[in-house]
Every structure is written in structure tokens, then in C-alpha cells.
């Protein structure tokens, strides 16, 4: 098929306007079932040797070719031309959040710094067994769903928090952290990684995710980083790390919905930062005044929804599910 690949390019060494991002269109003729990467390679080989991109395995395992295709992050080698072409055009841009080095190549330094920040290696507290650790297949299969991460950066590219707050550990590093917090071989004799859960509960960690779900959409390997972040939140609260805004926010949210069937927007922020936390509460005052001026202040008297009993019945059925499969019965730890 004939298709136009519209590439966002940039050359930091150029002395003209190509130093800034610009669009260039490449018409290519390519098989229907070819990938976007095939098209880019064809351009690089036949049209323009100055086009820079990273790519290697062509089979979605090396993680080199994450980029934005029609505005959303994905692997070029896993995206079939036919499935994304719109009116004969496919737009290709470098991954987001990370700074562009040239054309489709971005600087991954911040990505790897975040990975290293979560101590990304197994930390077993006791003595290693002589043979292998005895753990359940289910526990390993569950972890393999996370270790399937190929560190391509698609989730980081499209993370709406990182876009505005570069201090956030971000979806890839937190999914990596979960790979340890959920590993029965990591941490203490019960497989609880107390130290990790404490660190991850700090600002820039698990509670900074806004649950926008973009990372789940972007991940080409089904790792679902956001779901892993939510799972760490549960582990952290279970481990007793509930004395922070995030955990209190969750509690207040749950309590409000469970009690009245809807969110008490006035008390939610107060309970989140802590009733006695005067400095933080003072920070909310300007917001409160602006809301009041525009008539958007939530009612002081929070009312139940009609038929709240029905909501409570549903609520009671949604008890939190147990966290990831843990150590099996015949574990050496337990």
C-alpha cells in the first residue's frame, strides 16, 4: 500500500530552523501487513540516511523502538501499518516526557535513574537456600506478568503526572518495584518488603499516581503499570504505612462512599492531609475562597444519596481482594 509517514524531526546540530522540531513527510510503498518500524527502516535505508531512531529486535522484546504513533506511545515494531493509517497518513513522533536527542531518539537518562532509585534487585533478608527457593508457580506466573516489562518507556512517555512533575518515580520504576514487593523471595521471612514499602510510600512514590490509566493503554506488553501501583498501595497499607496523605485520602474516600453513597468533597482534602495538619490546611484556604466566590463550594452538610442502603449493599460486596499470591504452604520461610 502507499502511505505517507509524517515524522517529527529535530537536529540539535543544525544551524537553521531544523534545530527546532519540524515535520517531514515521506511517501512509502509497503506491504499491508508491514509494521511502522518496517516503514521507518525503509525510509532510513532508501530515502534518508540522516533519520535517527533506535530499533533492534523487530519482535517487541528489546524495547528500543517506543515512540508516539498517531499521538499515542507504542512500539513501532508491533504496530501494523494497516491498523493505524488514517487517510493515507501515519504520524510518528519521539516518545514524550524524555528530552529529544535527535529525531526519534530520546534521552533515557531520567528513565534509568528512576529505575535505579527503587533498588532494582532482589533483597532477601535471611540465608539463601542451598537449592532453589520453593515458591508457588502461581506466584512466579504473577511476577512474570510484570517482568515481561521490556523497559521501552512507552508508559513513561504518556504518563500525565511525569509530564508536569518530573520527580514522580513513574509507571515503569513502580512496576519494577512491585516485581520485588510481590516476590515471596524478597524482604523478610514472610516475603514482605517492609523497607521498600516504606520508601515507596514517600512523596514521589505510589501516592503520586493519578490513576489516569494512560500507562496501561500505552504498555505493549500488558504489564499494566497502574494496576501494579495500586497493588503496592494495598501492600503498603497492609504493612502499616497508612500515615500519609495518600493512604488517608483512600480511607476518607472509601469511608465517605460507604457511608453516604457519594463523595464528601469538603472533608476529603481535610482528612487526606490530616485534621491537625494546620499548615497544609492553610494551603487549601485560597482554593476554598475561590470555590466559594464562584459558588462551587461543596455543601457543609453532606447528604446521603437516595436509597443509600442499596449503595451500601453493593459497597459491602466489594471487599478488597487479597494481594498477589504469596508464599506457598511448603515454603522454606513459613
Amino acid at each position, binding site marked *: 500500500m502507499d502511505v505517507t509517514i509524517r515524522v517529527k524531526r529535530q*537536529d*540539535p*546540530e543544525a544551524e537553521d530552523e531544523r534545530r527546532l522540531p519540524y515535520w517531514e513527510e515521506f511517501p512509502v510503498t509497503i506491504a499491508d*501487513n508491514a*509494521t511502522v518500524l518496517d516503514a521507518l527502516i525503509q525510509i*532510513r*535505508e*532508501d530515502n*534518508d*540516511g*540522516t533519520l*535517527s*531512531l*533506535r*530499533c*533492534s*529486535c*523487530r*519482535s*517487541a*522484546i*528489546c*524495547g528500543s523502538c517506543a515512540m508516539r504513533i498517531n499521538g499515542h506511545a507504542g512500539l513501532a515494531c*508491533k504496530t*501494523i501499518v494497516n491498523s493505524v493509517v488514517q487517510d493515507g497518513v501515519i504520524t510518528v513522533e519521539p516518545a514524550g516526557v524524555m528530552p529529544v*536527542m*535527535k*529525531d526519534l*531518539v530520546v*534521552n*533515557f537518562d531520567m528513565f*534509568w535513574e528512576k529505575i535505579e532509585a527503587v533498588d*532494582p*534487585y*532482589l533483597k*532477601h533478608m535471611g540465608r*539463601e537456600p542451598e*537449592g*532453589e*527457593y*520453593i*515458591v*508457588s*508457580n502461581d506466584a*512466579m*506466573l504473577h*511476577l*512474570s506478568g510484570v*517482568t*515481561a*516489562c*521490556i*523497559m521501552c518507556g512507552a508508559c513513561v512517555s504518556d504518563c500525565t503526572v511525569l509530564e508536569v512533575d518530573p520527580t514522580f518515580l513513574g509507571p515503569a520504576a513502580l512496576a519494577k518495584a512491585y516485581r*520485588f514487593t510481590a*516476590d515471596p*523471595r*524478597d524482604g523478610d521471612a514472610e516475603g514482605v518488603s517492609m523497607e521498600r514499602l516504606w520508601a515507596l510510600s514517600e512523596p514521589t512514590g505510589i501516592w503520586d499516581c493519578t490513576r489516569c490509566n494512560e500507562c496501561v493503554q500505552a504498555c505493549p506488553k500488558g504489564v499494566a503499570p497502574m494496576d501494579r501501583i495500586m497493588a503496592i498501595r494495598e501492600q503498603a497499607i497492609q504493612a502499616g504505612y497508612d500515615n500519609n496523605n495518600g493512604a488517608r485520602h483512600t480511607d476518607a474516600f472509601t469511608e465517605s462512599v460507604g457511608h453516604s453513597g457519594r463523595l464528601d468533597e469538603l472533608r476529603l482534602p481535610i482528612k487526606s492531609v490530616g485534621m491537625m495538619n494546620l499548615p497544609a490546611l492553610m494551603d487549601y484556604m485560597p482554593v476554598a475562597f475561590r470555590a466559594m466566590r464562584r459558588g462551587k463550594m461543596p455543601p457543609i452538610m453532606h447528604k446521603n444519596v437516595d436509597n443509600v442502603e442499596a449503595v451500601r449493599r453493593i459497597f459491602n460486596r466489594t471487599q478488597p481482594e487479597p494481594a498477589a499470591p504469596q508464599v*506457598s504452604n*511448603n*515454603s522454606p520461610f513459613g
Partner: protein
Amino acid sequence: MPEDLQHDVLVVGAGLAGMRAAIAARAGGANTAIISKVHPVRSHSNAAQGGINAALLDRGDDWEDHAYDTIKGSDFLGDQDAIEVMCRQAGASLIDMEHMGVTFNRDDEGRLGTRAFGGQRRARTFFVGDFTGQALLHVMFEQLIKSGVQRYEEWFVTALIMEEGRAAGVAALDIRTGDLHVIRAKTVIFCTGGCGRLFEPSTNALIVTGDGMGLIYNAGGQLMDMEMVQYHPTTLAGSGVLISEAARGEGAYLRDKDGNRFMEKYAPNMMELASRDVVSRAEQTEINGGNGVDGCVYLDCTHLGEALILEKLSQIREIGIDLAGADMIREPIPIRPGMHYIMGGIKTDIEGRTNLEGVYAAGECANVSVHGGNRLGANSLLDTIVFGERAGNHAAELVRNVGFADFDVNMALARETRRIQEMLDRPENGDRWASIRKDMGDSMNRNVAVFRNEEGIQETLGDLHDLRRRYENVPVHNKGKTFNTDLVFALELGYMLDCADTIAVGALERKESRGAQFRVDYPQRNDEEWLHHIVLTRGEGGPEISELPVTITNWTPEERKY
């Protein structure tokens, strides 16, 4: 970047072998660095899908059985002392990886689970779904982070520097900045992987271009058994992407166009799980005989059931859906033999030492030799971690008693800078690297593939001669410094042409059929004349040939049947 870069041990290549070597050298107290043209987790070790072999004694397995299967798989060309080292060490190396955190699949008791693999009489392949290589590679990278090894990521080595008759360091291009550097080193360990991309198509990643083999060959090193090129039996129609042997290990069938399981004609006992050279030849025979469809036969997983496929073969199912539009749960997928691995490589001893002092090699770029004429599936991951570790250990020991070779770094840097600048300054009208690379790949795949004969190999040697002339004028269109992959690809092509020469010359030289080398004009194995390694070194007019004996310890060569 500070100049005066120097390290006791410098590892080139950060796949499994490279990282394992670096971690071992660092643990042995050496100032160690690792240099790689891609970030370590982008390395091609990722692509190993099916698993890693080990005979665990507490499971009633025996390393000698593993050794025998490996030797028979090698068609008796593997060196038995090296194979003994690998198979004895396998269990401990496997458990090490598990302790580091690899999420191996388990059995019902929570112990490491196994699957069957080709050419082996019992199931001793340990695995993580169908992405074992990726799982191992990422865990090894975790350990590398922990180890304190210095990393030069996205640096491309352009020359191995030898002074005073021993390793002195390397020249390397920082791909991000375009700056050239010289790194001094007492020892250099090459773990640069194979050279699959000089065949087209190939299962190999685009980065697999024989860099280390080329660098060592040009510095006077020995390449050995280069004619032994493995065609994997199940590569996807079209793109040539790998479909793991794990599929057959879990029970998948190979069928011709009429649905017949043709392997019963070729390997009545092992059927689909005969060794790879045998299965690939069978498929190609069927395809050539008109029993295929569009140059392919079928891999049928439909009887395995959805649950098993989703648990153990999910990645290759995805690949089939993405790249061939076929879901293996419901329908057979079209596959054919495709270039996959090279058994040959840089000749080393069991410590990883090459014939160049202070220069080591491990992993696919090396030839210890444990794979001989044909590698068993799931022995490659094992090869990387066992011999990577040994090379790292040995190098760390060596550097305690030697100093840095004395040489003028600035002069070496100026020499290399001139060479690269000359490439950049060439007129733009020559053939680009891509067209030369493609013509090389076509020629190799046509004549130095599953079935070979003298006429074909001679034709390819002629092609390679012409391609080298075209290469001498290869232009680099990108003149910039930042991430100039155009320049990197042009440099890689030089290594590839060197490797291609040695493969074709080796294939022409070996006038018999053994393992992956099948000569239609010499269809029998001939132990009397050819039970030896073919060694290639760089000469004036091309590769010079010599030979080395095969080390035989306990297992006498016998007829090979599956």
C-alpha cells in the same frame, strides 16, 4: 566525559555473557567497565525464548547425559573437555540465576519446572514462559547495577588496540555525542554476540553484526568453525522472526500442506524434537519437494489447548498474531527454516582466552567449542553465563600481575579519527550500506544455507569480492555527530563482510556433511578426513586456513540418529 579512561578489565558487549563476565571480574576485585553499542537490556540475549539447560542432580538427572546429548547434537565436532565444563557447572549457574531473582516457572511442589527440548533424551530445560532470555537479561542487568561496574552505554567499539603484543585497549565512538575515545585496558573481553544479520532474512536483531569477530580477526585473532551456521526450524513466514522451539517442546507438530507429520520420515524416535539441523533439513526437503505452501510448512499448536498456550507460549502467540495475522490457539502457523545462530566464532580455551594475549571472548561470538556442528536449543543461554563468568574470573586474576601496555593514546586516537573522517568525507555517489548489506544477505542465504554445494559457495565468494569493492566506497550520508547511526551501520558492514568471508571459505573447505554444514556434493560425514576444526586467520588475499584437532575425552564418535 573525562579523558584518560582506563580499566583493568574492559568488557565489550553487555548481553548475558558480557554482563556475567563484568560482574565476575568486579567481584574478583578488578576495576571493571562494560561498553555496549546499545543499552544492556536491548541486547540480543533477549531473544532467547525457550529456556536454559541444566542437569540437576537432585532431580535424578546426570550432567554426563547432558554432555552426551550436547556432543551428539554437535555431530561430534564439539570439544568434549569444554562440554564437560559447561554441563558440570550448569546446575550451580542455574541456581545462581534463580537466587538473583529470575522468575522461573515451577512444578506443583514449587521447585523449578522443566520442559522438553530438541535433541535431548530428558526434560532439563528450565524456563520463564517463552521469554527466558529476556527474564535472565533483565535480572543480570539488576546485578550489574548492584555490582558497581562502570557502564559505557551506546558506545561503539571501532578498533581493538594491541601494543607490545598484548591487549592495550579499544577505540570507541560515543554514539550520543559522536566523539571518539580511547579506553586503555589490561584485558578486553569480547561478548559481542553473533553475526546473524549477514544473512537475510535472519531471526537475529538488527544489531547482531559480528563486531567482535571482525575486530579480533583484524587484530590477528583466530576464528573457528565459521561454516557452522544454525538454521532454526521455526521462523515465521515473511519477517523471519523466531517462533520458539518451546512450542515443539510443549508438544506442537510440524505438518506439510496435506497435514502429514513428515518428521516420522526423518527422525522416527524424536520426531519434532530431533536436533535443529535435522529438523531444518527435513522441512527444507519437504518444501523443495513441493509439500509446502509458499515456501513454508506448518507449526500446529491447536491441540495444546488455550490454557497451556496462554501460560507458556503467550509471547510467540502474540508475535504470530501481530506479524502473521494467525492465532496459534486456533490455526497452524506458516514457518520455515531461518538463519538463527552461529556455532563458530572466536577460538578460545575453557577460560575464555583467545590466541591474543589479554584478549578474551565468551558467548555467541566465541567458540569454546561447546556447540560444534550444531547447537542444542537452550544450551546458548547456559554457554553465556558459564563461560562469561569464567572469562571474568580469569581476567580479574590476570590483571593483578600485569600493568597497562604502554602506548601513545593521543596518537591512537588521531589514527582512528582520521580513518572515520575519511569515511565521512567520501563522495555521496557510491552504493549505500543498506544495499550492500542486503545483497550480502541474499547471497549468503541463497548459497550458504541449509543445503550447500561448491558451485553455490563459489558464487557467493565472488559476490563477496564484489561487495567488498563496493564497500570501499560506501558513503555516509549523515555528516552529523549526534546519534549518527548511518556511520555506525557503515562501520558494522565492514565487520560483517569479514565474517561472511570466513563463513563461505569454511563452508567451501569442509568437504563433508556434519551438523549444520550439509554439502549436497559431499552428503556423508567423513570422520577420517574432517573430524577437526577449521581455523581462519586474516591473510593477504583473504582468510587463511589451518586446522585444530577435536578434543575427545569419553565419547567416541558414532553414527548420529534421532
